[in-house]
């Protein structure tokens, strides 16, 4: 792949704190290598801002290897930017060309209030997990493979659902700011495995109740979530979530 460098025009959302109204600020960044990651490009800008004595741009990040789900931002209208199945930290500058204008905004949803600049508070997701995203049985240490037989299809589907990193891009992408892709991934992951069986019914009811309480919208099946999800979680999980919810309520405890 050819290496090149580029000059970019950034338009970045700046907001001092959750009470501030916030506004866009324009920045020119020069000499950006096509081999940098998107976050490294912001690092370069931040170093300059700090040396100029101004406030650096706050953004969330942790692993920078696509597994923690922290690096939330909307790049030119897309959560995690233009590459499919990729987090912002894994997005590389070769996705852009010299002279590009890039608009960077925080994830927008009432349930994800802005903390500062591009950082949003996603503890609504933590509270959803606390409400039911656990198993009560002691599963001990990792057991030998196949000592607990699980149907192949269930094992596969549970594995794909478990790939959700809780990043919130589904909420950011959805026209209704719905969290159903996230919740459906968590519910599916545990509903498909024997370890999740004891709390199966109560889990889905509690998690959906918490999701509603947090003020997320509800799904109208337009599937923007699936397209923007860095882990490409399937909307078939939402159908499973609905089924689990209906079953849990119809049969009761």
């Amino acid at each position, binding site marked *: 792949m050819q290496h090149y460098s580029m000059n970019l025009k950034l338009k970045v959302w700046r907001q001092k704190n959750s009470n501030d109204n916030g506004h866009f600020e324009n920045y020119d960044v020069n000499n950006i290598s096509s081999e940098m990651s998107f976050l490294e490009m912001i690092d370069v800008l931040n170093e300059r801002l700090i040396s100029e004595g101004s406030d650096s741009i706050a953004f969330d990040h942790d692993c920078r290897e696509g597994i923690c789900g922290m690096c939330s931002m909307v790049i030119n209208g897309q959560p995690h930017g233009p590459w499919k199945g990729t987090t912002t930290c894994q997005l590389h500058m070769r996705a852009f060309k010299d002279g590009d204008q890039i608009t960077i905004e925080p994830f927008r949803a009432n349930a994800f209030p802005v903390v500062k600049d591009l950082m949003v508070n996603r503890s609504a997701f933590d509270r959803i997990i606390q409400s039911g995203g656990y198993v009560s049985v002691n599963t001990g240490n990792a057991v030998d493979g196949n000592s607990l037989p699980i149907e192949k299809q269930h094992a596969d589907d549970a594995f794909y659902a478990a790939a959700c990193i809780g990043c919130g891009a589904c909420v950011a992408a959805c026209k209704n700011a719905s969290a159903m892709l996230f919740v459906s991934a968590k519910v599916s992951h545990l509903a498909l495995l024997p370890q999740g069986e004891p709390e199966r019914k109560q889990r889905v009811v509690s998690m959906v109740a918490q999701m509603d309480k947090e003020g997320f*919208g509800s*799904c109208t099946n337009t599937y923007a979530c699936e397209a923007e999800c860095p882990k490409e979680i399937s909307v078939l999980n939402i159908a499973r979530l609905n089924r689990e919810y209906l079953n849990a309520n119809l049969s009761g405890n």
Partner: protein
Amino acid sequence: MNWSLLFSSSIGKKIVMALTGIFLVVFLVVHCYVNANIFFANAEENFNRAAHFMGSNLLVRITEIGLFAGFILHIVQGYKLELQNRGSRKTRYAVTAGNKTSKWYSRSMAILGTLILLFLIIHLAHFWVPSRFGGLEEVYYGDKKFHNLYLEMKNIFAEPWVVIVYLLGCFSLSWHLLHGVQSAAQTLGWTNKNFFPMIKTIGIVFSILVPLIFALMPLAMYFGLQLDLENITLLF
């Protein structure tokens, strides 16, 4: 079952939308079938007899109450969902990258629903109100008296603007159903990998075919068209 969850929780509301939506779809089939009498020879008598059956049969009348309840639930839940969904993102994005994953009509269900609702009010005033509360001419077949709903249809569809309003109603319905049918299947979790593609296909065919047949009715009345087939009577 905690029934209140069906009306208060997000997924509960969605399930009510889907179930009432499917119920309304079934109603459309029956309505379309009965009305299709007007396309064939001896239309007046066949249609008036069919309409009489629908208006007098006890089972049909009981189902009609369910139909009104279904409409009201669907409309109320639909607007509640729409308001909640619109309110869930107070600050909008400056840039949106387009909506590659959905069609405009999938994102406009409430607007299309509102158009259908406006149409429905006009439609009920045209036909349902006079046939329940009087105002229709009467006609004898044999020695039995019938409401001449066919004549009412003929008079109403003599106005070009009424024909146009009905055509717009049919378009709105078609778009609403193009999203609605497959959406209801997803909402109810009917996504078995053999079954779901079939539902999607049936949904598309239904959403085009049924509103098309409905749209042909005011047109046929306005232009006085009738199929010169054997004496076909639907329902009886």
